């Protein structure tokens, strides 16, 4: 796959990628506030990772590999 296609995909899925980054930032904010006495002890647990889309994507890739050339988007 070309780099351009990969980058285009990343751009199309930027919202999801940024959501992951935001979760990290929010986690840090909560910790920082707690340690400095400016916020409650962080008690919220992040959601366990979701592998659903990853598995679907892998299955699609394997279908393409076995297809002989008709498994595109």
């Amino acid at each position: 796959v070309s780099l351009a296609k990969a980058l285009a995909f990343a751009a199309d899925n930027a919202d999801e990628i940024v959501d992951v980054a935001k979760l990290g930032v929010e986690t840090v904010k909560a910790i920082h506030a707690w340690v400095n006495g400016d916020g409650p002890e962080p008690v919220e647990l992040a959601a366990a990772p979701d592998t659903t889309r990853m598995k679907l994507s892998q299955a699609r890739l394997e279908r393409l590999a076995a297809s002989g050339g008709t498994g595109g988007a």
Partner: protein
Amino acid sequence: VIREAIRVVIGATLYALLMVVPACSPAATPEARGAQAAASARLVYNAAAVSVQALITVQTAWTDAIGASGDVELAKKVAPISAKSAAALDAASGAVARARQYLEAGEGEAKVRQQLREAVGFADVAVELLASAGRPLPDKAVEALDFLRGFLGETGGDS
């Protein structure tokens, strides 16, 4: 975009862990230490969950892009490697989920940390595989996972 997102997540993870260390200071009272230990387990869990989710996002973007390209030859070449990294990330995700269950059930911190150690180990396997496939993020991810592994090992409590 992916590299920037990963950079933010990894930076947040490292910062979160650095903030946890002073919170576990031995100068605290036994009651405070107990509360802080429980809190730190939650915080390390959150850092591990975010890191594994970030790797899953990158893995999915990778396989989605190749799947959408319609390039059969590339798909044949990549599918065996991506299958292994997906399996490793699935195992890492499972370990993180078990850690979450232990935390919610109020199980001992040692059990939580053991699951998180397993999660980091599986995630590290995925990073190695992604690196072998030429993905751009592994160096930073490896640094974060090494840090997590070291933290979990040093703060101990093997079950």
